[in-house]
């Protein structure tokens, strides 16, 4: 192994990439517009939820409840009749439908404990839970406030002070922006490394490398560092210009530490890209393989949905995926302001996974390199 070879070959990779306008456009798109769009389009957890109200009481208290549903959490409520309710929920036009029964106010004041019905479209899981919680507390507040004008109501003496740390108003864009950066890092590092190998194979240049005094290790390491560098530079730009700049996400922790983590992550994913490049016989196969690998890596990493909610088996299997650790590491550093003393286990895990993937890919590369030429 000679470092000079690795450096020379890596510079060659960078020069090749510079002359590939399609890949360049893709890199720029992925690290700017794609992140911006994904972050801004991601609504607040409960945002503009569609709600319909069947008001069979038409009393002041009913009106009070209706007026309480306001944007941004809810769209202005649609006033409907009971017969329309089923149809509208079937079409998916409403996620929630509140039914205020006849004589609600009269029964309420008489202490007969009337019931308001809340219908929830439980196929929309993300809104169903939080939304029904909001609706319950809004209705309760309004009714309690209404009742207080008539008689003393026992307000619970035991309060609950809820505070969200690291993201006090729970803004989704903060979360979405960084998770999108992570997804793009993973995708591009796999694709660039895989494409760099397949391009050599298609142009027949790999054959040329093989008759020269360079080893497969040098060829592979050169591709890994060159593509990793490209992804890291793009990431640094995306973090400062797009995430902190255009999106205005306040970053708690150290961006350099995050980039260091990204470097270890990209080491693992570029190795994975090379591995896929050796497995795929043609570009269509590489494309399909990419989807098969990329989607689980991104969706099950904990970057889309909480890891706690996945079956134990999935959680255990995903411990071996670099993305899982990278997401944990990124969340720790960027949101919670954690330092290296806190996140080092994830660094260690990423390095171990990267080393294993690299070794595996290298073995596979060595074994198949003869057939490529």
């Amino acid at each position, binding site marked *: 192994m000679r470092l000079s070879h690795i450096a020379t070959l890596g510079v060659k990779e960078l020069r090749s990439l510079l002359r590939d306008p399609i890949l360049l456009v893709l890199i720029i798109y992925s690290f700017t517009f794609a992140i911006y769009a994904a972050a801004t389009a991601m609504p607040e957890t409960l945002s503009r939820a569609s709600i319909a109200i069947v008001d069979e009481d038409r009393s002041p208290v009913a009106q009070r409840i209706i007026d309480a549903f306001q944007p941004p959490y809810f769209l202005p409520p649609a006033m409907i009749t009971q017969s329309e309710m089923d149809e509208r929920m079937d079409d*998916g036009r409403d996620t929630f439908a509140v039914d205020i029964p006849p004589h609600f106010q009269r029964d309420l004041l008489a202490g007969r404990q009337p019931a308001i019905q809340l219908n929830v479209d439980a196929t929309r899981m993300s809104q169903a839970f939080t939304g029904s919680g909001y609706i319950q507390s809004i209705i309760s507040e309004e009714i309690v406030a209404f009742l207080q004008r008539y008689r003393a109501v026992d307000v619970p003496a035991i309060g609950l002070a809820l505070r969200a740390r690291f993201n006090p108003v729970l803004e989704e864009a903060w979360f979405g922006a960084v998770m999108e950066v992570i997804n793009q890092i993973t995708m591009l590092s796999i694709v660039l490394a895989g494409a760099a190998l397949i391009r050599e194979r298609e142009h027949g*240049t790999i054959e040329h490398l093989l008759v020269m005094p360079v080893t497969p290790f040098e060829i592979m390491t050169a591709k890994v560092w060159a593509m990793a560098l490209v992804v890291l530079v793009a990431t640094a730009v995306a973090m400062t210009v797009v995430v902190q700049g255009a999106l205005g996400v306040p970053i708690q922790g150290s961006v350099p530490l995050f980039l260091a983590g990204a470097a270890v992550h990209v080491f693992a994913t570029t190795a994975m890209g090379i591995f896929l490049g050796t497995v795929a016989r043609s570009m*269509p196969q590489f494309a399909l393989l990419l989807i098969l690998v990329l989607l689980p890596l991104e969706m099950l990493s904990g970057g889309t949905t909480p890891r706690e909610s996945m079956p134990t088996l999935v959680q255990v299997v995903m411990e071996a995926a670099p993305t899982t650790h990278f997401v944990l590491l990124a969340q720790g550093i960027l949101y919670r302001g954690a330092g290296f003393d806190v996140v080092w286990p994830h660094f260690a895990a990423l390095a171990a996974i990267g080393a294993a993937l690299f070794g595996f890919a290298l073995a596979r590369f060595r074994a198949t390199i003869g057939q490529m030429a």
Partner: protein
Amino acid sequence: MTAPIARLEGVGLRYGRTVALDDVALDIPAGVMAGLIGPDGVGKSSLLALVSGARAVQAGRVTVLGGSMADARHRDAVGPRIAYMPQGLGKNLYPTLSVFENIDFFGRLFSQDRAEREQRIADLVAATGLAPFVDRPAGKLSGGMKQKLSLCCALIHDPELLILDEPTTGVDPLSRRQFWELIGRIRAERPGMSVLVATAYMEEAARFDWLAAMDGGRVLATGAPTELLAQTGTETLEAAFIALLPEAKRAGHEAVHRPPFASPDGEAPAIEARGLTMRFGDFTAVDHVSFRIRRGEIFGFLGSNGCGKTTTMKMLTGLLPASEGEAFLFGAPVDATNLDTRRRVGYMSQAFSLYTELTVRQNLVLHAKLFGLPASAIPDRVQAMADRFGLSAIMDTLPDALPLGQRQRLSLAVAMIHGPEMLILDEPTSGVDPIARDEFWRILIELSRRDRVTIFISTHFMNEAERCDRISLMHAGRVLISDTPAAIVAQSGAATLEEAFIHHLEEAAGPVTAPAPAPVATVAPGHASRRGFDLRRLLSYSRREALELRRDPVRATLALLGSMILMIIMGYGISLDVENLTFAVLDRDQTTTSQDYALNIAGSRYFLERPPITDHADLDRRMEAGEISLAIEIPPGFGRDVARGRAVEVGAWIDGAMPSRAQTIRGYVQAMHQQWVTQRAERNANASAVTPFSIEIRYRYNPDVRSLVAMVPAVIPILLMLIPAMLTALSVVREKELGSIVNFYVTPVTRLEFLMGKQLPYLLLGMLNYLLLVGLALTLFGVPLKGSFWALTAATALYLCASTALGLLASTFLRSQVAATFGTAVMTILPAVQFSGVINPVSSLEGIGALIGHIYPTAHYVTIARGTFSKSLGFADLQPSFLPLLIAGPLLIAVSAMLLRKQER
């Protein structure tokens, strides 16, 4: 002479900045065998592509069969009267399809009915001698057979004008001779047919009726071969061609002279092969090849494409490990891991395989560095190479912008950069013009004689073989004979080396089975193929695509199995019920009341308790590390205050790093707190705490609020968007990359037929995929399909129409398979996953996301999938969602058809 079959006036053609044709004016006579001669890259192929209508006319006027080829109506009308066989062995064939299926595909494109097709195919394969091989895949034919098959495909519709672009390049001499005999017979059968051929073999061209010599995008001279010879006063066509070249190009050209080879006896051979054998599966590519090459010798390997020349060379360089036998370089066995041997060998592969993204200088420097030349010596060495190989003027140019001859010199310079003792050159001169070739050979001879570099070279040019010290004739993996060229000619009693080679080939093939001279029957000309929309042509493309898909099981299996694996991963993985959340308590009270409060949370299925928090620093650290997502702080005196009914506040800290999870935790904590307070009040029999009203929540469609029930019907639409779109896009772009797209350019198939024909098999594959996914949902996931299966199936068909059409749309502007993979991924993943209501309802999206969510087909299909799976709905209920799906597919296809070009530009 009758009117010319094709007339070009002031025709120019550029690719970017490169000029391919420069103000060409030419009349090509009808009813004869007309040839374009000249090396690669002089504009022959461009000219043929223009005449055939495959490429759009940029400047000037191209008149073929009495009309302008710039006029789309005329092109459509005369298209069926022209046949075009593009350059490259079997370029327009489909390698996985059999001989019969290939010809059959073309027959269908020309709307021939079954009986007509079968009769024509039978005649054609009988005439070309392919009859015994009709079931063999085209990819497994030899070069000569591929070209015969290409010819069959071109002749299936009785063209008036047959255009052949270098039909015999890379084919062995025997097959070449048979090919021209075949053309001769066909012309005898159909005297009216005009044939236009481009060729780089001057010997061949000497037999044509009329020639146009081309160079640098211009026509040098036209006329019968004898006229050209007379005009230049030369004896061979090659010499005539050189004489016709402009003065500047001829400058410095002189005939190649080879001093005799002399080697000191007793020296160890530079290369030795003993019984070298290479098998790929049950196919033997190289069969017990042995030879010895002395130091400084020029040793030639002569044979057709695919005879094992390249494989033998690769074994010698260590690129391929031999299955059997041994090879020695400089007396040491070839060992792929021995990097030192590599330093003594220079290798030049068949295709130009340097980095086209690097300039000439960068390529030279890169190789110098990799061969470990000391950094200080590199600039001098690079300069020396540039001077010796005449590259000084073009050092900062990209290889793509250079003519072939210069690129080959660059390849040789790169192979020589480290001063190797041996050069292995795999067909270094194919396609290079005669002058550049002679120049190349002068360098080789100088290297051999002056520097004593051993040269092992393969070629299929006979006149080059004659320049070698010794040659081996190779055929079908075996060396037929190995000796000096003169001895081979003398031994077989032939007049030329070519005849000697044919003689040996015939001997090797056993008794010559000359193709039965079956008359190429002229079937009653079929009905003129219809213009406009023709279902048969559409189905012809579908049939072919389906066959290819079936022969490529990897792709089909990945598409089906892959989507099922993904569904399992996503169905189980994306669960939105949040459970097992970690929390810890900072209990500053330590009374039974405070413990009861903590127990209330720990006892729920949502939370897992971690060891208690000791102080605020501990709380900060553990939250930072993400160890706990909820911290509860119970103030001192909590139990006492509660008992006395004094106001007291419990603190709860939620990890907000993941907002959706934080929201859920907040909901849980609020509910549990409320529950605890109520329970306490009831236990204390405090009547006033009884709530004055109640809210009844009905979770509809999914009463248990299970994630699977919500997610599985939403995952199906994502998968049915992604995979069909990508496969369809790749299927079109692949044809562009491999070259078979030319069949679409030159046959009567319309844009719509082509697109829908390609789409259909993927639509069916998608439906199969859909059934598998629904089956998986019902069985493995246990998600019941409560509504109308037929409504869902109908919607799926419409949806797949749209997703495959989206793939087609992407394929109209994407050129490479890499770009197609990416482009379709970008166009499908983000909109389908984020903006189509899979996780957040479309109605709650804003901005671009909302716009995409309203028009993207996935959004509407998700509504239908959830409606039928969970909401027990049918056609009538889902009408509003069907309408957009109904529009999307046809609209996308129409747009694709508008964007797709029927000609290359």
